[in-house]
Each structure stands twice: as C-alpha cells, then as structure tokens.
C-alpha cells in the first residue's frame, strides 16, 4: 500500500498545522528619525524551516514513474483535453459535489487539532467507500474514540439550516453508534422549534445519544496532544465543560460564487 512508501513522500506531513515564519524587525524606537531597513531578513535556520513548510503542491510533476510502471500502457500524458460546443433546450443547475461551507466559530479548534473535524469529513469517515472503510477512528492517532461530540458551528437565525443540520447530526450519530462499541455520542446545538416538535421525541430515545440544547463555545487541549479535547459550552444559562476524543462540527453549506453567478446569468434556481 502507499503508506509503506513514506520515504518517498516529497515532504512529510508531520508539521501541520504550523505557523509561518515571522519576519524579524528592528524596534519602533530604533526607526525614528532614520531610514534603517525595518525588516532584518530571515536567519538561515528560519528560512530552511519555512521552505520545508512548502507542500510542493502535490500535483502530478510529470515524473512518469507511473507511466514506466503501467504494464497495459494505459497511461498517456499526451491525451488532449476535449473542447465541446453543445446546445440544449433546458438547463438544470444542481449543487454538484460542491462541499463549501460558511466559516464558523474559530474557537472550536478546527484546523488546530486533527481530532476536530467537520460533518462533511465525518460523513466520508462513516462511508464504506471512505478513507477508513467506514470505521470511526480519530484522524490524530487512529484510535477508536469512546466519546464523540457533534456540535453546531453556525449559530444564527437560519431555522432551515438548524433543522437540517440537527437531523444530519442525529443520523450521523446513529451510524457511528451502530459501528462502534461502547460509544458515547453527545449532540450540542440550539434546538429549533420544528426539530423539537417533529423529531426530538424519536431522537431522544436513541441509546447512546444525548442531545443538549446549548451553544458550543470553545475547544481546548490541556497539555500534550494525547490529552482529550475539552469542550466548553453553555446550556440553560450555565457554562459547562466536558472531555471528548473526537469533535464533529456541523457546518452550514454555502453555494460557490461560480454557481451563484451561473444561476443568476441563466435566471435558473439551483436545486
């Protein structure tokens, strides 16, 4: 499998996330009434460290190793792109596989901790065709989590979003609970009226799932990476906190500007 070839990776991924190098500067006092260069330049160790952050933009480099390896000679770098001029009577615009989402509370630690993921990533994780054959594991260390929180990322007045994300959160919990032994699932989000009226009673009965009407505030890690995630949230006007092994953030889908303008141009709604 590909994971055996670690030495052949262009750059190992161990450093994500890591901040970029900051340019050293002389102090403000040193700058007054003179024109000395304010930025002093990277020292060598800093420059090398920064250069190593480059992903080399992991796209095909045209090295042709695959071409040399392909016995049936199926790989051909010279297959041209195709340009088509087509005419239609009607057009239907759908969202496609566009999975963009609105930005959400940055305090929730997404991008900072590898064991904080989005609902879209969780969906891929739960899929049998996904990266872990449908197993629920922490992307940080591959351990099977014992406690998972599904938390609302976008707290605004969008009722329709709230309802669909709550249902998705419950459904994802149902699948995760089915796949994982002794799992404790907690869903934390403001609850909208339609959810409470139509779905809450049934969702509440799901064994292993606890639904808390509240607002997630922040996610922290106490000491080193092996510690669980500490989720702070408010519920019933009280500040609370609880430890989890994996946190899933419910995102609010966003239509790409490209599709928006296509829809506007053709005067056709997106379904």
């Amino acid at each position, binding site marked *: 499998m590909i994971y055996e070839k670690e030495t052949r990776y262009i750059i190992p991924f161990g450093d994500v996330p890591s901040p970029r190098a900051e340019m050293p500067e002389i102090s403000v006092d040193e700058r007054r009434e003179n024109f000395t*260069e304010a930025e002093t330049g*990277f020292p060598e160790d800093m420059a090398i460290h920064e*250069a190593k952050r480059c*992903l080399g933009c992991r796209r095909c480099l045209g090295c042709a190793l695959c071409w040399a390896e392909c016995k*049936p000679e*199926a790989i051909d770098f010279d297959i041209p792109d195709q340009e088509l001029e087509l005419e239609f*009577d009607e057009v239907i615009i759908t969202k496609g596989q566009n999975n963009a989402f609105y930005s959400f509370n940055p305090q929730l630690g997404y991008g900072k901790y590898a064991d904080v993921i989005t609902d879209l990533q969780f969906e891929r994780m739960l899929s049998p065709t996904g990266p872990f054959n449908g197993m629920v594991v922490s992307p940080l260390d591959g351990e099977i989590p014992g406690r998972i929180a599904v938390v609302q990322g976008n707290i605004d007045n969008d009722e329709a979003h709230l309802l669909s994300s709550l249902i998705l959160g419950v459904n994802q919990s149902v699948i995760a609970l089915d796949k994982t032994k002794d799992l404790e699932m907690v869903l934390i989000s403001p609850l909208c009226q339609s959810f409470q009226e139509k779905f809450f009673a049934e969702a509440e009965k799901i064994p292993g799932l606890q639904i808390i009407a509240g607002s997630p505030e922040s996610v922290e890690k106490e000491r080193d990476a092996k510690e669980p995630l500490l989720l702070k949230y408010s519920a019933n006007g009280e500040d609370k906190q609880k430890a989890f092994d994996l946190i899933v953030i419910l995102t609010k889908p966003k239509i790409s500007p490209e599709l928006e303008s296509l829809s506007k141009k*053709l005067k056709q709604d997106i379904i």
Partner: protein
Amino acid sequence: MSDKTVLIVGGGLDGVRTALEQAEAGAQVTIVEKFPTLGAERIPSDRLIRPEQAFMNPDLDKVRGHNNIRILTYSDIKKINRDNGNIRAHILKHSLRVDNSKCNDCKACIQVCPVNMFDDFDEGLGFRTAVDFCNITTGEYNIYKEDMPVCQETCPVNLDIRSYVGLIADGKHLESLAKIRERLPLPGSIGRICPHPCETACNRQYLDEPISICFLKRFVADVELDQGIEPVYETPEQKYPEKIAIIGAGPAGLTCAHDLARLGYEHIKIFEALPVPGGYLWVGIPEYRLPKKLLQREVDLICNMGVEIQYNTRIGKDVAFEDLKNDYDALFIGAGCHTGLKLRVPGEDDYEGIVDCVTFLREQALGNLPKAKGKLIVIGGGNAAIDSARVGWRMGFDEVYILYRRTKKEMPANSWEIDAAEHEGVILQYLAAPVEILGENGKVTGMKCIKMELGEPDASGRRRPVPIEGSEYIINAETIVPAISQGADLSFLSQGHNFELSRWNTFEIDEETGATNVPGVFAGGDVVTGPDIAIRAIAAGKHAAVGIHEYLRSK
C-alpha cells in the same frame, strides 16, 4: 418520445437523480461535473434514519448504462449563455491522462507515485497520490496534473517557486537564487517589496498559513551578498546588431533591457529622466523598505551585461521622441506613472506646504526635502499613502495623520503595511475627507475635513462614502501630502502622435508582445496599466523583450 435536450450542471446526488428522472421521461441528458467522477452517496438530512438506511445512493450503474445520458466528468463549463431560448455551452473536458479501456486496475501506478496529497474526495481526511481512481465503486483512473503549481501560475513572471523554495529546504541557497534569476533580474529588491500575489494563492493557507515565499527570495539574495559573491549575468556569444532604446530605468525598462541583453543584443540604451535608476523602486519605495545600495547593485549587474543608462535625460525635453524613433531599431516605453493626482479642493494651489505623494517620496529619496517641522497630513488609502506617512514619521514630523474616506476594511493598501504604520505611531483617521486647505501668509496651516459614512456600493463594489452634513472639523498641519492616485505623463510624445491611448491616458498594447499600434514601439509597466505593482511591470518588460526580439528578427 420527445427530443428535448437537457443540460444538468453538477453530478452530485441531486444531479444524478434528476438526470435519471429526465432520461426516463425521454429527454436526452448531459451531466457536467467538475470532479473526475460522479458522486453522491449522502446521509439524509430531511428525515431520521435507521443504521441500515445510512447512505442514499443514486443508481449510478443505471445512469452509466443509460442510452439517453451522456456523462461529462472532469469538465468545466467555460462559457454558457441563453440564445433565443436555447442554451449554448462551451465545455472543456480535462484529459484523464489514462486510457481506462486499457487500464487493468492493478494499482501499480498508485504504488510508485511519489506525490502525496490530501484526498479531496474524502474531504482531506486521508491522502492520495496524483494518480487516483477517486472511489472504489465509481471511479475512473485519472492523473491530476496542472501546467504549473498555483503560486507559479499566479506570479506575473511565473517564477518557478516550487523549485526555488525546494532548493532552500535542501540548503542549496545559491542554486535557488540562480533559479530565480532565470526569470527575475532583481531578486533582492522584489524579495523585499513584492505584495506577493503568490502567497495569497498558496495552497498551504488551507492547512494553516501560506508559505512566506517573498521573504525566502530575499533570503537567498542576502546570502549571496553576505558571502561577498559578485555574480555575472551571462550574455550569449552570438550578438545582434540592432539598436534598442528604452525610456525609463524602472522595473519594466530594466527587465526589458536585461532580457534583450540575454538574447544577444549589445546596443541597448536606457534613457532616464532622474539622476538615479530603478524608477519607482528608487524614488517611490522608501529606503527603510528597500535600501538604495542594494537596488544599485542589482542595477549594476544589468549594466555589466552591456546595457547603458543615460541619466538626467528627459525625453521630449532633452531628446525628442521622434529622434529616438528614427535613430533606433526598436523602442520600449516604460515611463511609469509619476504624476500625483490632485485633490480638487479649494486652497490646493494657493499655499506652500502641499505636495503630492509622488513628489514628496521622490524628493525625500533624492535628499531634496527641507527638515521636517510640525504636523503632516497624508490623504489617501493606498500603499503610496502609507509609505508617505511612514517616511514622514521617520523624517521627524511631530504628528503624522492619514486621512481615508472609507474604513480600514476598504483600504487598498496591504494590511501589513497599514499595521506597521499604526504600530509606528501614525494616526489613522478613517471616514474623513478633505474639504479645504487652510493657510496664512502663503503657507499651509491646516485642513478643514468632513466626516463620512458609508452608503451604497459603487462601481468598484466598495461602499461609497457620503459626507455627514455639519461634521466639519479642522486639523492643524504644516505639510499636506495628497496620495490619491498617480497618472502617466505622456507629454513627451510629439504633437499629433498617432498612438492609441486608453481613457486613462495610458498606452494600449498587445498583451502578449507589448507592441503598441506604432510599429517598432513597445510599452509596458505602469504607463500601460496605471499604478500597479512592480512584479507586473517586470512581467511586462519580459513580454516586450520577447516581442521586440520577434519584431526585429522578422524584419
């Protein structure tokens, strides 16, 4: 059966389902999807499910085998419009680079591929190689290849950033610098002052923060300096006899001269109105951002290739433009935008102490300004405004103000420059505009300003500032520097010239070659684009060098 043709944009769950419905009803359906595969297993979000109902899966096999459905995956809609009720679409289907009819699914390619990238199909949860089949049950093999990495594509001169950054990572700093110099003759200068569009595009930002590409370029240029190495810019053995004149020793002109010299031209002369080279790099960018000594060294490297710079020579005054045109085989105009635009408020022309930002920065750089006294007001929100204020603060003005009519968010200056100015103690007043320049005995004493609020968005998409009636106030100041914008000064052209000019009084050129409508005359840089960043002027100089070469060789 109807002959209705339907285009479905998007091959996700909804697209695939709709395609099947339409096809079953007899329509001829085409699905266009950006991804190399149709997608679409999703967990429902409109009803509660039991575990065994986990994923909704459209019937992909049925879609694939359907006679009425054409699938265009890995395809982009390049152009689409409604024409007499019909939809006309221009679609680009990217090459998979794999002939899937020959592929036997052995995965040998995946095992040898050295590229390891986040798996976009799995939302970045796992990794994949550049060869991929997206999904066990649905995918076709394909190789994800771009012409260039996104940084290189974004860079106006298409610097091979991936290579030179990689060389630094390996500790090969001088090799890295050589790589940069293949396309850029001023690495130390650009490595200090470039607003780096490449970093704005850098893919690493989606993981944490973009790579500090610009400063890495500066780093390797500094390594050479620190080691006391004097490089030589090589020129080829084979020389061409033609004479080429260049107007302006700014980034566009210098680069054009450098590239022509490297092609083998030995008679290149740059005419420069100022006593110094570099154009705006010398007289616009302050010393604390780009030391003159360093810029001079990089210019000298170009002159050592046999390029001559004649200083203190203003075309149209010291040498007639027509003479240049007659005496030389080709001409490149890189005169820049060195005229500061006016505020158009009362009192502007009446007092001493009001000086536009271009003049202010230039005279400071040339050491011609009197000693700073009292307060300074800079008006404007671009990088020239910030530079003027930071220069004024260093000159020793007691207080330095920047007045901008919108808010920080709308300011066109680079955010890090604004932060640096604030950090140094420049006072930024947002939502304020000048009303009148005040003065006494022929000298500026202050400025009457008015507070603004933001109204409806204007043509630029930014919200238009509207004055708040009765909110006038006065700031006392001895020096006022309008930094509104800059224009080109084309008065060097002869009367009755027949150049095509834009409505902004800049040259119209052919973008590929830099050619103007007058044969043998080329132009590039700010004199074409209006005030813009140095690296784009450099790119224009490069295009023109190629254009001039082609023009001279085909003569």
